[in-house]
């Protein structure tokens, strides 16, 4: 039993490294993902996760850090969405959709021009937890600390914006400033996580654990905590399964987070039905009075 569940992480140093990286990604995604889910930013998060592709590809062609390229890609897509929606009066989701396909297409064109990059495309899109280096961990720790710092400092405006933008604005918080800060936080999460789970799959880690947690949490902090646990558990189980059955590690982790969401959704639905039934019953004291 122990051999199956624990031994691989003791014996295999790379697997241990992958688990540490995945834990860091899970916590970072839980903090950022909480606000993604509450503020309904999944689509912009998705666009960001795809929009970094040309940046990463260009950086790799120029032999500079892919993280720098990803940061430039994220900045271009955020700026582009803002510019298109403001100047050309199209809705935000249309602007996001346009920038999303434009950046993804550009990324594919850039990678198709180089045979080496074509081989790396899989790695960029789907990540490779089992190819994580210790230097990647340093970046992830820095990103986690920054995301937590932003989340802590801006917790009040982020919370109010989750209820109503007007509430934040009339309390003296600039909605555009804090919305952009939130996007920067999501961008940072995507950039720091793509090495481990890839640009396509990072959305799963951002959305699925937080969407599961929101059903049961009663506070924002507990939502982050539950989302972190789900992400960490999925990382452990995903790496274990991929180790034993030779599955793609990152995809397995993300698929597990979505399966956990499905289980939570069914459980939540059952809980609601049971509560409804209890509400429909006559109250005990009324029952006693009747006798």
């Amino acid at each position, binding site marked *: 039993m122990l051999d199956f569940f624990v031994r691989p992480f003791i014996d295999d140093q790379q697997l241990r490294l992958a688990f540490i990286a995945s834990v860091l990604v899970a916590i970072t995604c839980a903090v950022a993902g909480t606000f993604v889910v509450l503020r309904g930013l999944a689509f912009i998060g998705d666009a960001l996760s795809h929009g970094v592709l040309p940046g990463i590809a260009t950086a790799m062609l120029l032999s500079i850090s892919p993280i720098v390229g990803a940061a430039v890609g994220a900045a271009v897509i955020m700026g582009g969405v803002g510019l298109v929606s403001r100047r050309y009066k199209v809705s935000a989701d249309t602007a996001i959709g346009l920038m999303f396909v434009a950046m993804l297409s550009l990324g594919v064109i850039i990678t198709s021009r180089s045979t080496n990059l074509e081989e790396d495309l899989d790695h960029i899109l789907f990540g490779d937890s089992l190819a994580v280096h210790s230097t990647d961990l340093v970046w992830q720790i820095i990103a986690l600390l920054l995301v937590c710092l932003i989340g802590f400092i*801006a917790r*009040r405006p982020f919370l109010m914006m989750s209820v*109503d933008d*007007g509430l934040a*604005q*009339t*309390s003296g*918080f600039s909605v555009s400033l804090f919305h952009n800060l939130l996007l920067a936080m999501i961008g940072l999460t995507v950039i720091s996580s793509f090495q481990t789970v890839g640009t396509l799959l990072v959305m799963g880690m951002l959305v699925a654990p937080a969407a599961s947690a929101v059903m049961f949490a*009663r*506070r924002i902090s507990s939502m982050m905590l539950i989302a972190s646990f789900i992400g960490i558990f999925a990382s452990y189980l995903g790496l274990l399964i991929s180790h034993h059955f030779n599955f793609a590690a990152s995809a397995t982790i993300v698929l597990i987070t979505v399966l956990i969401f499905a289980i939570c959704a069914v459980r939540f639905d059952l809980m609601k039905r049971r509560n409804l039934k209890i509400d429909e019953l006559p109250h005990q004291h009324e029952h006693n009075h009747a006798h």
Partner: protein
Amino acid sequence: MPTKTVLAENVSIGFGRHTVVAEIDFSTDSGALVVLIGTNGSGKSTLLKTLAGMIKPLSGNALVLGAKPGTRVKNVGYLPQHPISSHTLPLCVRDVVRMGRFADLGLFNRETTKDRELVEIALEKTGAAEFANKPLRDLSSGQQQRAHLAQVLTRQAEVLLLDEPTAGLDINGRKLVADLIASERARGVTVVMATHELQDAENANTVMLLAQRVVSIGAPEVALRDEYLRECFGFTQPH
């Protein structure tokens, strides 16, 4: 002469190039109640958002507590119409009410005993204390509205801008809102309220009837004359 708490001089409101209501003129003193009445899209919420500083007036001069709207955020409380995330937000009522203190606390100040006391007082006043620890999303729309009302009361504002505060409330809830407004006015708070309901105007100092223009303005008995109501809604009050 004391400064008018809310002043609008020839103010036009709207979005971009689209004017919703033009040439609004009115002013209020401390403790006054101004009720904005009209159908959907008549400009009530746009006027409240303009006074709250969320939308710039297209033209004219608007002042709230002697300053441009949106400047004195600590002294102006705004209750939005149907806050959007009440059905998903993982927060208990007390936490929602605590948000009312954020304007004073800013980003970094820690909550004090006084802040916590104000939250408890607002919970008691609105009758939300009995479900203060329940998640907001598990409550009825009327109970959620009480929580949002409690939140705006914790602001300790000098001007309250309330967008349909009685929406979703039953008769008891409506009476509670009327009592709350009366008690706030008694301590000198100016209340500007948007509503669909004519009976909400009973105790108003000023009623403004809107239909993408100012149909009438003045004391309730003047502004709610049959000819104005017919023009605004197509019917008159039963006598």
